[in-house]
C-alpha cells in the first residue's frame, strides 16, 4: 500500500491533469457568464452549479489519491452544500462542499483536498470545504443549527451515494422529527435578528438582496422550515405540500429568479460577492435589465420599482408562510388567544386567530365583506389570513364603481383611515392585497414608484401610507411633538387632514413637473367621486396643492420679515387650513426620511407656522377683506396716476410700501405721498401742508429718510413752533423712507401762514442737522405747559408694553392727559432707550391722548427683556405725570 509520501508524489505528478480540469471549468464558466450577461441564459444559477458538478466528477474520476484510498476500504462522497447544494450558485458565491467519509477521516484526506480543492483555489474560486465522517456529520448537525441547515440543503455530487443517504435519513428520523418545533423556532429567531440588522429591503433605496426582508434568505428559510416540517425535497413541494397556491408559487419563483439575475449582475459588476445593491451599481444594471424609458421615468427608477415589487412579493409570501405556521405575533403580550369573535356575518376568526371569509360565495353575494374584513382586522387587532387575502386579490373586479360609491363603504374606509393601527397596519394590508388600488385607482400610478434621490428612502405609495400613520401617531401621543399633539386635538374634522396625507403625492404618477399642482386636481377628482361635500373637497385639494409651501418658504425666505409672514397668511387665509397644512408638512417630512426632517428644519417651519398663526389670529393684515381693500387701492391708484400697472415705476413704489401703510392710508393720499417722495432727492426731508376744509386744521405730510429719533425731532419741532399736534400717523417704507402725517391746529396768524410754514420748515432743517438741542429748548416750555394743564386725573395714566400681539414689533401704548410737548417727550424718551419707531398712531380727544407705537430696538429686535420693558414703562410714566 502506498505511503503518504508516495501519494504526495503521485498527486504532484498529476497536477497537470488537475490544472487542465480546472482550466476547463474556468473557460466554460466564462462562456456561461457572458451568455448570461447577453441575456441568452435563463437558468444561469442552475447551469453554473452543474458546471461545478462536472469539475468535481471529473476530479473524482481522475483522482489518484482516491484510487489509493480504494472504494471498498475507505469510501467517500462529495456533497454540495448551501447555495451550491440548492443549485443556486451565483457568480461571486462560495463553493461549499463536504467530503463525507464512511468510518473516520483518514490521513490521506489532506492529500485528497490538495488534489481536488487546491486547483480551484489556484483558479481563483472561493471554496469552503469540510471533511467529516458520517458519524461526525450527524453529531455536528445535531448540535448546530447552521450546520444542520447547510446539510439539509445538501446534494450528492459523486462518490459513494449511500453515505449521503445514510446521513440524511438519520437526520430526518432522529434529529428533525424529534426536535422540529425547536429547530423551527431557532430558524425564526435567526430570521428576526437578520431582519433587524438588514432592514426591510422591499422599499429601501440600497436593498440587501440576500439578507434584507424580502431578500433571498427569506425564500431559503421558507424552504428550510418546510423541509424540517414536511420533508420538502424540492422547491415545488411548497406548492404540493400546500404551503402556497400554484399562482403564488409561480410568482415566488419568478421573483426569486429575478433577484438571482440582479444578484449575479451585481457580483459581476462589483467583481466580488456583494449583496448590497449600492446606488453606484444600480444605473448600469437597470440599463441592461429595464431598457425602456416609460412615462418620463428613468430606467433606474423603473428597475428599482420592479425590484422592490419582487422583493415585496417574497416578503409577503414569507410573512404569510410564517403566520400560518403560527409564528407572527398573534396577540399582544401573551394575552389569551381565545375570545376574539368577528362581529360580521360572513367573516370568521380562524383557529389560528386570523380573519377569514366564511366562503367564496359569501363574498360574491356580499362584496362589502371585502372591506369589512379590514375593519374587523383593525377592530380586533388580528391579521387577515392568506386564503382571505387570496380571495380579495381574485375578486378585486368586484371593487367597481358601485362598490366605491356606496356611502356605507366609504364610511368604513374613513374609519380605517382615522384609526391608529396598533400591530397590524391595515392600510398597508389594503395596499398589499391590491384592494386599495382598486378602491382608488389613481394610486396605481404611485405604486412602487421610486423617487430617485438620496432624500426619499421609500417609494411613493409606502411613503404616502407612512405619512398617514405618522400624522396619527404624532397626534395620539405627545412624544416630544407637543405642538402637533395639541393641534391634532383641536381639529374639527380629522378626515380632511388624513385624506390630504394619503393623497398629497398622488401627482407624482403624472409626468408633470409640479406634482403638487397636478395632485390637487387628482385629489379633487377622487373626492368628488366619493361624493364628499364641496368645502371638504376644496380644503383637501388646497392642502395637497400647497403641501410644499411651508417648508419652501421657511428655508428660502426671510421669516423674520413681517412681509413674508403676511404673504403666507394671505395665501393660506384661514386658521384651520394653516394648522392642517403645518401638520401635513411635518408628517410628510418625517415620513420621507431623516435627511428631510431634522431639528434644524423643524424649528424653522414651526417658527413660521406660529408667526403666521398669530397674524391670522390678531389679524387685520391678512384677512380676505384686507386683501380686497389693498387690491382695490391698487386699482384706484392706477387710475389716479394713469400709469400702466406693469410699468416698473409703479411696481417699484408698490414694492416698498408695507402692508399696514397700504391698509390704513387712502389711495388718494398714497398717490400724494408718492408725488412727495419723488421730490425728496438728496434733501433730508420734504414737507407739504394742506388745509383740511372740514375741520380747519392743517395736514402736514413729511417725507424723510428715516433715522433714529426722527419722529421725536419732528414732534419737537412742531412744539417749538407752537403747533399743536392733534393726530398723527407715522409709517416707514421698506426702503427706509418715513412718511409722517400730522393733523395740527391752524396757526394763529392766518395772514402770514405761508411764511410761518417756511419758518417751520427751516427750523426742522436745523433740528435734523443737529443744530438745535431740542430737549434743552423745550424744557421750560414743557414744564410750564404741564403746570397749566394740571389735573386731578379721574382716569389713571397708563403705559402698556405688549410683546405678544405681534411677532415682529413690540407695541407700546400710552394713555395720558395731553400737554404741549407731550409727544416730543414721549418719543424722545423712546429714542433715549434705543428704540426705533416703525409705525405710530397718535390720537387726541379733547384733553386725552392715545398713542400707539410699533417699535423695535436699534438692532431690529423686539424689546423682550422684562427689565428693559419695565424701565421703559416707568420712565414714560414719569414724563406723563402732570402733578
Amino acid at each position, binding site marked *: 500500500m502506498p505511503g503518504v509520501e508516495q501519494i504526495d508524489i503521485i498527486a504532484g505528478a498529476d497536477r497537470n491533469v488537475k490544472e487542465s480540469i480546472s482550466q476547463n471549468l474556468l473557460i466554460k464558466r466564462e462562456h456561461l457568464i457572458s451568455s448570461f450577461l447577453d441575456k441568452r441564459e435563463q437558468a444561469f444559477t442552475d447551469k453554473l452549479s452543474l458546471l461545478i458538478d462536472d469539475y468535481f466528477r471529473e476530479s473524482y474520476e481522475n483522482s489518484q489519491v482516491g484510487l489509493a484510498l480504494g472504494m471498498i476500504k475507505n469510501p467517500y462522497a462529495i456533497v454540495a452544500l448551501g447555495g451550491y447544494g440548492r443549485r443556486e450558485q451565483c457568480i461571486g458565491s462560495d463553493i461549499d462542499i463536504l467530503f463525507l467519509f464512511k468510518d473516520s477521516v483518514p490521513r490521506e484526506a489532506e492529500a485528497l483536498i490538495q488534489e481536488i480543492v487546491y486547483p480551484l483555489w489556484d483558479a481563483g474560486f472561493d471554496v469552503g470545504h469540510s471533511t467529516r465522517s458520517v458519524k461526525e456529520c450527524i453529531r455536528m448537525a445535531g448540535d448546530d443549527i447552521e450546520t444542520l441547515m447547510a446539510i439539509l440543503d445538501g446534494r450528492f455530487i459523486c462518490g459513494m451515494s449511500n453515505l449521503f443517504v445514510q446521513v440524511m435519513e438519520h437526520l430526518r428520523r432522529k434529529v428533525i422529527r424529534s426536535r422540529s418545533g425547536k429547530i423551527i423556532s431557532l430558524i425564526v429567531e435567526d430570521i428576526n435578528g437578520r431582519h433587524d440588522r438588514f432592514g426591510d429591503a422591499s422599499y429601501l433605496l440600497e436593498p440587501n438582496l440576500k439578507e434584507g426582508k424580502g431578500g433571498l434568505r427569506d425564500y431559503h428559510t421558507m424552504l428550510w422550515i418546510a423541509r424540517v416540517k414536511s420533508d420538502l425535497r424540492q422547491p415545488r413541494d411548497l406548492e404540493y405540500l400546500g404551503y402556497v397556491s400554484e399562482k403564488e408559487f409561480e410568482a415566488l419563483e419568478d421573483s426569486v429568479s429575478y433577484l438571482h439575475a440582479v444578484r449575479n449582475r451585481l457580483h459581476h459588476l462589483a467583481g466580488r460577492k456583494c449583496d448590497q445593491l449600492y446606488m453606484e451599481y444600480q444605473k448600469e444594471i437597470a440599463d441592461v435589465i429595464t431598457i425602456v424609458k416609460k412615462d418620463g421615468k428613468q430606467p433606474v427608477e423603473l428597475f428599482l420599482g420592479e425590484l422592490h415589487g419582487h422583493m415585496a412579493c417574497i416578503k409577503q409570501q414569507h410573512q404569510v408562510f410564517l403566520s400560518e405556521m403560527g409564528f407572527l405575533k398573534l396577540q399582544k403580550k401573551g394575552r389569551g388567544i381565545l375570545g376574539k369573535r368577528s362581529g360580521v356575518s360572513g367573516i370568521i376568526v380562524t383557529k389560528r386567530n386570523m380573519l377569514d371569509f366564511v366562503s367564496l360565495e359569501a363574498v360574491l353575494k356580499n362584496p362589502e365583506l371585502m372591506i369589512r374584513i379590514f375593519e374587523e382586522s383593525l377592530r380586533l387587532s388580528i391579521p387577515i389570513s392568506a386564503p382571505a387575502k387570496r380571495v380579495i386579490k381574485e375578486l378585486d373586479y368586484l371593487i367597481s364603481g358601485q362598490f366605491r360609491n356606496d356611502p356605507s363603504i366609504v364610511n368604513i374606509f374613513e374609519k380605517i383611515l382615522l384609526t391608529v393601527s396598533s400591530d397590524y397596519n391595515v392600510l398597508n394590508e389594503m395596499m398589499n392585497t391590491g384592494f386599495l388600488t382598486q378602491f382608488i385607482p389613481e394610486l396605481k400610478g404611485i405604486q412602487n414608484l421610486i423617487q430617485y434621490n438620496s432624500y426619499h428612502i421609500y417609494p411613493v405609495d409606502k411613503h404616502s401610507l407612512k405619512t398617514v400613520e405618522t400624522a396619527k401617531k404624532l397626534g395620539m401621543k405627545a412624544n416630544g411633538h407637543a405642538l402637533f399633539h395639541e393641534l391634532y386635538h383641536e381639529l374639527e374634522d380629522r378626515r380632511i387632514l388624513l385624506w390630504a396625507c394619503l393623497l398629497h403625492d398622488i401627482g407624482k404618477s403624472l409626468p408633470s413637473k409640479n406634482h403638487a399642482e397636478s395632485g390637487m386636481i387628482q385629489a379633487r377628482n377622487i373626492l368628488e367621486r366619493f361624493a364628499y361635500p364641496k368645502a371638504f373637497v376644496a380644503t383637501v385639494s388646497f392642502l395637497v396643492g400647497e403641501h410644499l409651501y411651508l417648508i419652501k418658504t421657511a428655508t428660502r425666505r426671510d421669516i423674520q420679515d413681517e412681509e413674508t409672514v403676511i404673504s403666507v397668511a394671505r395665501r393660506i387665509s384661514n386658521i384651520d387650513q394653516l394648522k392642517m397644512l403645518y401638520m401635513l408638512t411635518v408628517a410628510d417630512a418625517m415620513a420621507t426620511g431623516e435627511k428631510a426632517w431634522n431639528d434644524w428644519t423643524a424649528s424653522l417651519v414651526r417658527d413660521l407656522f*406660529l*408667526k403666521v398663526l398669530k397674524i391670522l389670529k390678531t389679524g387685520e393684515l391678512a384677512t380676505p377683506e384686507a386683501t380686497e381693500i389693498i387690491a382695490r387701492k391698487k386699482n384706484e391708484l392706477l387710475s389716479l396716476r394713469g400709469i400702466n400697472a406693469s410699468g416698473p415705476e409703479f411696481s417699484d413704489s408698490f414694492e416698498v410700501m408695507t402692508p399696514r401703510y397700504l391698509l390704513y392710508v387712502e389711495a388718494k393720499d398714497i398717490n400724494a405721498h408718492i408725488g412727495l417722495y419723488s421730490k425728496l432727492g438728496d434733501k433730508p426731508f420734504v414737507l407739504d401742508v394742506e388745509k383740511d376744509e372740514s375741520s380747519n386744521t392743517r395736514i402736514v405730510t413729511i417725507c424723510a429718510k428715516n433715522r433714529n429719533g426722527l419722529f421725536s425731532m419732528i414732534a419737537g419741532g412742531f412744539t417749538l413752533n407752537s403747533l399743536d399736534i392733534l393726530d398723527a400717523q407715522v409709517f416707514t417704507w421698506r426702503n427706509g423712507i418715513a412718511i409722517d402725517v400730522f393733523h395740527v391746529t391752524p396757526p394763529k396768524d392766518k395772514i402770514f401762514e405761508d411764511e410761518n410754514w417756511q419758518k417751520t420748515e427751516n427750523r426742522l432743517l436745523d433740528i435734523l442737522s443737529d443744530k438745535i438741542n431740542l430737549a434743552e429748548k423745550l424744557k421750560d416750555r414743557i414744564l410750564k405747559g404741564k403746570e397749566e394743564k394740571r389735573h386731578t386725573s379721574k382716569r389713571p395714566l397708563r403705559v402698556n408694553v405688549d410683546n405678544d400681539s405681534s411677532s415682529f414689533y413690540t407695541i407700546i401704548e400710552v394713555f395720558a392727559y395731553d400737554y404741549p410737548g407731550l409727544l416730543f417727550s414721549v418719543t424722545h424718551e423712546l429714542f433715549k432707550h434705543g428704540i426705533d419707531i416703525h409705525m405710530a398712531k397718535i390720537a387726541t380727544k379733547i384733553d386725552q391722548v392715545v398713542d400707539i407705537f410699533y417699535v423695535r430696538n436699534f438692532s431690529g429686535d423686539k424689546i423682550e427683556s422684562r427689565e428693559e420693558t419695565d424701565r421703559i414703562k416707568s420712565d414714560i410714566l414719569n414724563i406723563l405725570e402732570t402733578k
Partner: protein
Amino acid sequence: MRKIEAIIKPFKLDEVKEKLNEIGIKGMTVVEVKGYGRQKGHKEIYRGAEYQVDFIPKIKLEIVVAAEMVEKVIETIANAANSGKIGDGKIFVLPVEQAVRVRTGERGTEAI
C-alpha cells in the same frame, strides 16, 4: 491658502452660491447650524406653551481659496448675504496648511 467660514441666514444660501459661482468659486461645503449672537432667540406662545427658539437656524459655508482670492470672496459673500437686518451673520478667515485632492494626490493650490 485660506479657509473662509461664513455664517449666513438660510434663505440667503442660493443667492450667495450664485454670486460665488460668478466669481469662479465652483465648490463649497455647507452645514446646517444653529447659533445666536446679538440676534437673540425669541419665543412664541401657543395656548400657554412657550416655544423658545434660543438657537437660531443658520447656514455655515466653508470654502478654501488661494490667498489672493480672499478679499473678493469676502466682499461677494458679505454683499449677497446682507439683508440689513440683525442676524445677517459673520465671515471668518483662517489659514490653511495643506490641501490634497484624494483622487489624484495633487497638493497645494492645485488641489483647491
